[in-house]
């Protein structure tokens, strides 16, 4: 599924988060990675692609489907996606299992038993077996993010969107979560991911979008990007992030 974005703009007050961002990804780009300095618009772009945010202007094509920006269509589009956020954003009043199973029941209309089964399968797969009945507050950051990942993939989304999924985790937990994401990326799951983990990006990315001040300043195959970043900023960025690795 290719993604085509033209002249996407999003403004918060005086701040231009997206300033005419445009790019194309090819059909076979299963894992698209967004790179760029903090504040360059990665999170905003991710949210617009996932229909969580309405852009002020511009157009998004997901395959042949043009995204629409009224509330009903956005809800329908959103339900095709899975999201994982930087801050986990689990529901603190629900057990880990309910975090995963509740959306399956009420959004996908699965039966209690099917939802429970599906949720347990996803959680087992991510090594959460012993923790399913715990509340988020009783879990470590890495475990919480794995629950969030299970919640996102359990309904088998068309697109999985991850917004800096490891930036709130310590290095050990980061490794765990990145391993799972890599496993997903190497499977059939289509992923759009923003990250500062450049070594990881190099391993999983099929396509790289490099953002700066709300614009996509590089859009190319991952091998090509990491071998020869074109812009000076991207060169500095890649170099800075790999200096101590």
């Amino acid at each position, binding site marked *: 599924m290719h993604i085509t974005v033209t002249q996407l703009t999003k403004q918060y007050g005086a701040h231009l988060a997206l300033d005419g961002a445009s790019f194309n990804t090819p059909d076979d780009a299963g894992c698209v990675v967004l790179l760029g300095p903090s504040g360059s618009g990665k999170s905003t772009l991710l949210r617009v692609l996932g229909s969580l945010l309405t852009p002020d202007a511009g157009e998004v094509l997901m395959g042949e489907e043009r995204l629409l920006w009224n509330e009903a269509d956005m809800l329908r589009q959103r339900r095709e996606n899975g*999201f994982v956020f930087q801050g986990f*954003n689990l529901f603190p*009043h629900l057990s880990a299992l309910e975090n995963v199973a509740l959306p399956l029941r009420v959004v996908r209309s699965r039966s209690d038993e099917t939802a429970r089964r599906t949720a347990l399968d996803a959680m087992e797969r991510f090594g959460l077996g012993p923790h399913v009945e715990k509340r988020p507050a009783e879990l470590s950051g890495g475990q919480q993010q794995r629950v969030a990942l299970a919640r996102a993939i359990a309904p088998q989304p068309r697109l999985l969107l991850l917004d800096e999924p490891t930036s709130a985790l310590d290095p050990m937990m980061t490794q765990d979560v990145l391993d799972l994401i890599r496993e997903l990326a190497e499977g059939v799951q289509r992923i759009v991911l923003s990250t500062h983990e450049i070594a990881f990006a190099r391993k999983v990315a099929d396509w790289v979008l490099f953002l700066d001040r709300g614009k996509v300043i590089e859009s190319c195959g991952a091998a090509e990007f990491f071998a020869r970043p074109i812009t000076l900023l991207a060169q500095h960025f890649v170099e800075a992030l790999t200096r101590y690795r």
Partner: protein
Amino acid sequence: MFTSWRVVAWNGRPAEMSESRKVWLWSAALALGCSLVVVVLFSASEYQWHWDSIWQRRELIARGWVATALISLAALVLSIVFALLLMAGQRSRVLPMCLFARGVVEIVRGTPLLVQLLVGYYIVANQLHLNARAPVGIVILALFEGAYLAEIFRGALESIGASQLEAARAVGFDRRQTWRFVILPQAMRRALPGTAGQLVSLVKDSSLLSVIAVDELTHVVQAANAAAYTGLEGFVPLMLLYLALTLPLSWWARRLEARFKYET
């Protein structure tokens, strides 16, 4: 007992008293000490106690106690209704509605309940020819507590952060599902301890209804004191009877608070 003694003997240290036993023992000691001070104080004042004249009026006082409990219950239900209306009003996008609700909350919270009862009953209710003291008192009391509850509810609702709302949208909840599964369960949990605490205040504040001669506990005890020509005897049971209502409530409030702390 025997086993614990053996353990003590083995590690050679005196038995540690359990925390809860310590609390009980100290509470009993303090209560006894305070009682002694009170007894000494009153025996020095040469006041002649006539407990029997209050005991003779126990039925009247019991009825007053039940009335206080019922008034509190009615005012509680009504105050929650007022609180929801005032909160919804303050969050309304219709400016006059928002200003009106905010104005009511500020005026009610900025004036004493005693004054509200006097003005509400002797001026407003009289003008409207409403002479039923208890219902008028209940409405005024409910409005007073409702204004505080509205702020508790509003705080609880606004404490649900943007990230929770985003997570709700991200898993595909529509607006109704977001309220039902994400906002309300969390907001209610957060509002519960404050609400329970406010309920304790409501029970105590109901004593002010005596100024408009509603036959609740404080008023009947005053009447009993007057009828029996006793000055003070009624006030001791009065205090104990209020504690009988409020202590279980504050115990419950504290338990809710502890549970809430654990969950976040």
